[in-house]
């Protein structure tokens, strides 16, 4: 038998109306190795920035994934609206000449 006795959750007021205060959501960015960019790896909850870093360390770097962690509260991120996908992104689909694929790259340059 486990000796854990988890505390009771705070009672909720009426149907579907919880008084439980959730911690804010944070987005986590991890640099895999020196020289690479920080990449978004996921999100988590934490009461403040310092705990968010600690939680990120525990949740996202267990298998030696990182050398640096950034966290930012999700509410500070401004995102594009999915409904505006057409006007925002479709115009560039027909402009293949913007891709630098019409040049012969010398072999000496190697992988780009």
């Amino acid at each position: 038998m486990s000796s854990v006795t988890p505390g009771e959750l705070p009672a909720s007021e009426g149907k579907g109306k919880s008084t439980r205060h959730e911690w804010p959501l944070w987005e986590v960015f991890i640099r895999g190795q020196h020289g690479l960019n920080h990449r978004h790896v996921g999100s988590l909850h934490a009461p403040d920035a310092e705990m968010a870093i600690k939680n990120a360390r525990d949740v996202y770097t267990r298998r030696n994934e990182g050398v640096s962690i950034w966290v930012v509260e999700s509410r500070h991120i401004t995102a594009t609206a999915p409904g505006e996908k057409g006007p925002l992104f479709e115009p560039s689909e027909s402009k293949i000449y913007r891709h630098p694929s019409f040049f012969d790259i010398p072999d000496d340059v190697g992988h780009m």
Partner: protein
Amino acid sequence: MAKQDRTTLTEFLLRMGDNTLILGHRVSEWCGHAPVLEEDIALANTALDLIGQTQLWLGYAAEVQGEGKTADDLAFLRDAWDFRNVLLVELPNGDFGQTLMRQFLFDAWSSILMPRLATSSDTRVAEIAEKAAKEISYHVERSADTVVGLGDGTEESHTRMQAALDYLYPYVGEFFLSDAGDAAIAAAGIAPDPASLRAEYDDFLDRVMAKATLTLPEDRFTHHGGRNGEMHTEHLGHILTQMQWLQRAYPGNTW
């Protein structure tokens, strides 16, 4: 190594390894039960770190003992009276706050001891301590922050943390009890005399509890009997029945 020295060193290593083994098992009991996912993973990480340290301490203990045993034999085939952990680590988890308070009280001691062990005259002890020190400095940062957060939190969390401190504090004195074995270990430069760590420990606790708005009990009475194996609490036997049942039911089984 003379037989007497070997016995004394084995005893010291068992004390180190049994602390981390029993606390590691206790903390692992939270796996899947913690209040939020992030804390669940953090607790599981801590438990794994502690079990990792156990492998090193008990592995070395088995070598020094020289009876052909392994760390696993020591962990899974000894009975309660052979364990040398302090009573604090075998106490029940209670609620999340009590678990984190116990963790902090242990981490604080461990974080003061480990840098000193890193300069041990015994190179194996020094190597184990150096490896463990990094894990421990993270543990203590995390557990101290949580004690402060919950102590200086809501009325409910404050009350629970104060109750946890009142319950657990009468067990911390056992860390600092010294016996003839400790004196021999200290004289050989293997580890400091346990009593010599108390002042730094008290300072550390004073600082964290002040931030956490918690009151340390004034009474210095301490329960003891774990690290010398005289008398464990009733909880240890229950832990062992769960921890050891597979090796007891299927001796020598591996996976």
